[in-house]
């Protein structure tokens, strides 16, 4: 009877394990995760869960009883030390060794740590796990002001949630706008306005230099020489893929575990999915994505491909972010573009934006605007060259540009 091991009990890993069972895999299946909890969704941690609007239980990826009912052996609260590719064995902290026929690396990312004076002071917090979110909630409950370092998705969402809880918030970002790396400066300025209008003190173009306090965080010093006082700080300055388990093996690593279009690594039978996987995408080229929908869909495809399906993963990528009353969505992937086309009303924060490069639609963004970001996905996948004049027109239905659907 074959044994499959999934390293990482997160969205990608748990979805892969559930998919293996729903696709009929009846061998031994072991799901291993470092956190003591059953697999849960992380998006609420910076939003609904942080604001105490919903319990963690609403975000179970499967009901906790699912794993036993489906004969998935779980090792929650256990770290995998290494995946030995020569012996095809997973070596767990504590010494357990599990020989496998196929394995999935779904180790995700860890937060990037700033090596700055005072970073280890109590009251300097970060967000990745439910336990991290609990620490922020506890700090927020007895605080008046928070300092958030980094205006990426985590920093922006945490700032919005803390404002929602009634705290004063200072948000410090090295780039010239929030989310500039993902959205570019033009859309980043829309996010900037959103935060300013909701009373966030925004300090752009300056970075953290030092965390100060007598035994506990009291203030942040920035590279601009500014001193920002607060009762606690949250640092969200990006992430890095957790590839340690396959270091010094034949699994190729370069800013993530490299996988081909079918999510298989350079070692046959070993796959990777989720935030850790740098995937050879048929449309976008090599890409590593740190979003929910991608992790879930990669988990599904990895599960099927561990059973030999050889399915190409070519999803167009989609994610959302909720900040205050703004529902933000984006699909596709573009690091650069030469044209951006708007439809709707940017000044009212109800619009879509389409990013084109050499006339080809590469990504779509929207704020409080229905349908178009999702409708753009098949167009992005098919590399269509839409007429910008039509894109501008809210009455023009993007679906008319979509290639015919592949038969199911």
């Amino acid at each position, binding site marked *: 009877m074959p044994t499959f091991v999934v390293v990482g009990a997160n969205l990608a890993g748990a*979805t892969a394990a559930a998919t293996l069972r729903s696709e009929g895999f009846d061998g031994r299946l072991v799901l291993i995760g470092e956190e003591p909890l059953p697999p849960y969704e992380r998006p609420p941690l910076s939003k609904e869960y942080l604001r105490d609007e919903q319990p963690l239980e609403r975000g179970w990826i499967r009901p906790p009883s699912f794993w036993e009912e489906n004969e998935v052996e779980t090792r929650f609260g256990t770290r995998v030390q290494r995946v030995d590719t020569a012996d095809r064995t997973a070596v767990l902290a504590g010494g357990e060794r599990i020989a496998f026929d196929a394995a999935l690396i779904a180790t995700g990312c860890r937060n990037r740590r700033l090596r700055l004076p005072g970073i280890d002071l109590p009251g300097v917090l970060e967000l990745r796990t439910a336990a991290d979110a609990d620490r922020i909630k506890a700090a927020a409950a007895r605080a008046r002001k928070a300092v958030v370092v980094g205006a990426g998705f985590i920093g922006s969402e945490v700032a919005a949630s803390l404002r929602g809880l009634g705290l004063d918030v200072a948000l410090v970002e090295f780039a010239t706008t929030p989310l500039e790396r993902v959205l570019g400066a033009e859309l980043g300025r829309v996010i900037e306005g959103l935060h300013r209008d909701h009373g966030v003190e925004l300090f752009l173009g300056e970075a953290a230099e030092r965390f100060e306090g007598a035994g506990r965080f009291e203030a942040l010093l920035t590279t601009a020489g500014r001193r920002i006082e607060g009762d606690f700080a949250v640092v969200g300055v990006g992430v890095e893929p957790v590839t340690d388990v396959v270091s010094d093996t034949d699994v190729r690593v370069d800013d993530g575990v490299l996988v081909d279009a079918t999510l298989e690594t350079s070692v046959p039978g070993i796959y990777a999915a989720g935030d850790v996987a740098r995937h050879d995408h048929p449309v976008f080229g090599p890409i590593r994505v740190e979003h929910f929908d991608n992790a*879930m869909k990669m988990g599904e495809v990895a599960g099927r491909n561990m059973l030999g399906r050889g399915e190409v993963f070519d999803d167009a990528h989609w994610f*959302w972010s909720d900040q205050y009353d703004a529902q933000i969505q984006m699909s596709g992937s573009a690091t650069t573009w030469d044209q951006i086309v708007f439809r709707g009303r940017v000044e009212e924060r109800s619009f879509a934006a389409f990013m084109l490069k050499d006339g080809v639609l590469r990504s779509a963004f929207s704020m409080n605007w229905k349908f178009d970001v*999702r409708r753009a996905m098949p167009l992005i996948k098919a590399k269509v060259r839409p007429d910008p004049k039509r894109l501008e027109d809210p009455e023009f239905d993007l679906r008319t540009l979509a290639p015919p659907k592949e038969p199911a």
Partner: protein
Amino acid sequence: MANWVRVGEAGEVADGEVSSFSVGDRTVAIANLGGDLHAFDDVCTHQQCSLSEGELDGTVIECPCHGSQFDIMTGEVVEGPATEPIDVFEAREEAGELQVSLE
């Protein structure tokens, strides 16, 4: 036995459209597919968003919040993150009324 409840006027949901209606303490969505009416629970089983705000493609409704997809004929999940199906109900137009049965 079907227990028909009036929720609106006949013709209120046009072909290809989806609308939501309050029925007692729940919200029910009604879709019109080429003249055939299909009712289903408006509340996504993932994070409780309103499905009638989402896009209907054939018999599949897509949640506008996080992309879960459900077949409105059966209630089954077509695509996650939702894992639990939605309830589906009967709807009809009768005597100038739009009616659903939650039985």
